């Protein structure tokens, strides 16, 4: 079963409420039309070889997670691949419809489905009773379950019996953790919860934990990618994944999915897709460091590009905010000063990560308006950097001798003209080093957006070692890219500074 951190669990409640609300709205205004009001079609009982004609030639927007290997993740070239992706595309082809995949993140995907912005969600989502109240599910397309793996060269631990007195690791909030906890007293071991799969595998390889409990597909995929582990137990009974549509909506699509899935299972394509991601690789040796650099280069460049885009957009907005609120701060109006002071206090007084989570997860929940990850990221960084810019602008203006403004005003020049011609040019000179500094800070801060799934450089690095398990080397490459870009841009800024601010 896929991991459900608290933030996702809590969502269940508001989803139900929202769903009820939407249902009422749809009933009152008849917006959904006859399809929306019709009862959900029972999913199943579609014989192989059948094609559901109603979907033919149509295009459906399908939302998915940003990364949940091996179900959806980006390969070396940045393409979205995985079991879910291959499956939905194969089914679409089989059934004659088109899909428009939207990689939104798990929560955002469900939200987009709720608000009918997409037709369906395929995101390694477990079929649960709670979710069945809000969504209609296809027939299960994958049966998950927990397995245990140990380091490849570990000859001692072959079953749960060998764990006595040892520490194992499992993903926080996952089914693996629940299972490990349920048997830990019986076998006498301790459970250490970690945040993600790559970290857990590194923990086992480093010998801090002797074994890892993880979802079977995730674990099998890791092993297939030479993550240095081997699986030693059978799969424990677990949950099943399903494709979801909004309750009562898109019954045709659901029928087509089930029909297509049955066809793929019948013609062997389904097994091919699973094998592609889960079968043990033919023990290909890992390439050298430079091969890693070469292989990861396209994905990292995509990440670097997004890092730079986010930095530039954020700084541009931050500059506007900084100038605006900076002038508020030096204005005579108590109200404007108060507004600026409040703004700065809020964004300097809270962690950037909390702000990012708020704009990406919190705000959409409160407004019902989904927000894409670039917008959320730029919003976070620009509001945050804008607060620091405000202080830089205020400091710059205030460090200009007040006699300068007085001399200008005494000549009969207006406040605005005096600022523009006399104070600001001098303030810019004072502010430039701080601006360059803020520029570097914001560029580095973009890496924090990896946690909301923004596919910048750090995120791409994480994706790469999440699939090849070469954590150290990959991070070295990522760090080197940051270093090169930051050093180059700093040098450039300094040259420009010297040239224009003599």
């Amino acid at each position, binding site marked *: 079963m896929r991991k459900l951190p608290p933030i996702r669990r809590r969502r269940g409640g508001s989803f139900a409420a929202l769903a009820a609300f939407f249902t009422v709205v749809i009933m009152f205004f008849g917006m959904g039309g006859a399809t929306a009001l019709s009862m959900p079609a029972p999913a199943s009982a579609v014989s192989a070889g059948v094609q559901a004609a109603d979907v033919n030639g149509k295009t459906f927007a399908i939302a998915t997670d940003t990364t949940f290997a091996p179900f959806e993740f980006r390969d070396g070239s940045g393409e979205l691949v995985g079991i879910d992706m291959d499956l939905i595309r194969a089914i679409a082809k089989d059934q004659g419809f088109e899909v428009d995949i939207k990689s939104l993140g798990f929560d955002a995907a469900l939200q987009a489905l709720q608000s009918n912005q997409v037709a369906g969600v395929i995101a390694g989502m477990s079929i649960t009773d709670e979710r069945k109240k809000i969504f209609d599910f296809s027939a299960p397309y994958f049966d998950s379950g927990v397995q245990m793996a140990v380091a490849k060269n570990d000859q001692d631990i072959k079953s749960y019996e060998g764990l006595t007195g040892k520490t194992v690791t499992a993903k926080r909030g996952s089914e693996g953790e629940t299972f490990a906890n349920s048997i830990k007293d019986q076998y006498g071991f301790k459970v250490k919860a970690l945040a993600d799969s790559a970290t857990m595998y590194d923990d086992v390889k480093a010998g801090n934990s002797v074994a890892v409990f993880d979802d079977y597909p995730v674990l099998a995929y890791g092993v297939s990618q030479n993550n240095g582990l081997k699986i030693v137990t059978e799969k424990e009974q677990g949950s099943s994944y399903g494709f979801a549509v909004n309750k009562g909506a898109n019954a045709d699509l659901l029928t087509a999915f089930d029909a297509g899935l049955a066809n793929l299972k019948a013609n062997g394509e389904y097994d091919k897709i699973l094998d592609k991601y889960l079968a043990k690789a033919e023990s290909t040796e890992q390439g050298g460091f430079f091969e890693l650099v070469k292989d990861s280069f396209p994905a990292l460049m995509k990440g670097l590009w997004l890092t730079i885009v986010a930095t530039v957009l954020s700084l541009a907005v931050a500059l506007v905010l900084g100038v605006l609120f900076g002038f508020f701060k030096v204005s005579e109006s108590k109200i404007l000063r108060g507004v600026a002071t409040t703004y700065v206090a809020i964004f300097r007084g809270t962690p950037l990560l909390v702000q990012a989570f708020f704009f990406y997860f919190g705000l959409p929940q409160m407004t019902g308006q989904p927000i894409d990850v670039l917008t959320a990221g730029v919003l976070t960084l620009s509001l945050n950097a804008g607060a620091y810019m405000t202080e830089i602008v205020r400091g710059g203006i205030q460090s200009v001798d007040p006699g300068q403004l007085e*001399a200008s*005003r*005494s*000549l*009969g*020049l207006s406040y605005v003209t005096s600022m523009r011609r*006399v104070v600001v040019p*001098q303030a810019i000179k004072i502010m430039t080093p701080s601006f360059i500094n803020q520029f570097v800070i914001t560029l580095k801060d973009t890496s924090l957006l990896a946690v909301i799934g923004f596919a910048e450089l750090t995120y791409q690095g994480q994706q790469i070692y999440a699939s090849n398990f070469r954590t150290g080397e990959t991070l070295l490459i990522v760090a080197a890219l940051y270093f090169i870009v930051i050093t180059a841009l700093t040098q450039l800024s300094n040259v420009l500074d010297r040239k224009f601010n003599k």
Partner: protein
Amino acid sequence: MSATATDKSAKISVRGLKKSFGSNEVLKGLDVDVAEGEVVCVIGPSGSGKSTFLRCLNKLEDITAGTVTVNGFDLTDAKVDLNTVRQNIGMVFQHFNLFPHMSVIQNIMLAPVELKKLDKAGAREKAMELLRRVGLAEKADARPASLSGGQKQRVAIARALAMNPGIMLFDEATSALDPEMVGEVLQVIRDLAAEGMTMVVVTHEMGFAREVADRVIFMDAGYICEEGTPEAIFSNAQQPRLQEFLAKVL
């Protein structure tokens, strides 16, 4: 004493001027008229309110009570366009306050060009003429930082004259200068006086005040303590505070 009636012929007319910073009353009710072409020197001990008084004349300080009328415009009237009034009042500061990011000539051209009084060429011509007048034509393209104190102050005077003001205010224009440079700046002010410029000059240079002033005002603790001709102030002081002050500075 006509404390309330405004003297229509006066360029500057101050009535009941009070100024407080918070609870600290710095000016406690001043009445002053300055006639066209008159040179008024203001003397007094440190902290007596001389600078504050001067800065009220072009409203660099907000006026707490009373009126200040310049060229017939009441500065305390919110409807009066201060920028227009200020164009006719040049001010020279103790610390020059030249714009360091502009050349000497750009400092002088700024106001005429920004306020569209002259086009660029006209403003340049005017600025060069002013620079020749203060003896600094060869410094037109220099940066203020490369000038001596005396030269800076002469540029500041040229800048203040760029809008052809009818009134000039000087706030201890020579106090920040090395002694050997005081003379060159005083000479420029002296020339202006001789040309009939209306001026209010706050100064510590008693000899200069005595020489150029038509009238001397002695301020003490926020009041005008005594005023009169240079002769009356310097040779025939009435108030004990003035006598004390002169004993110290002369």
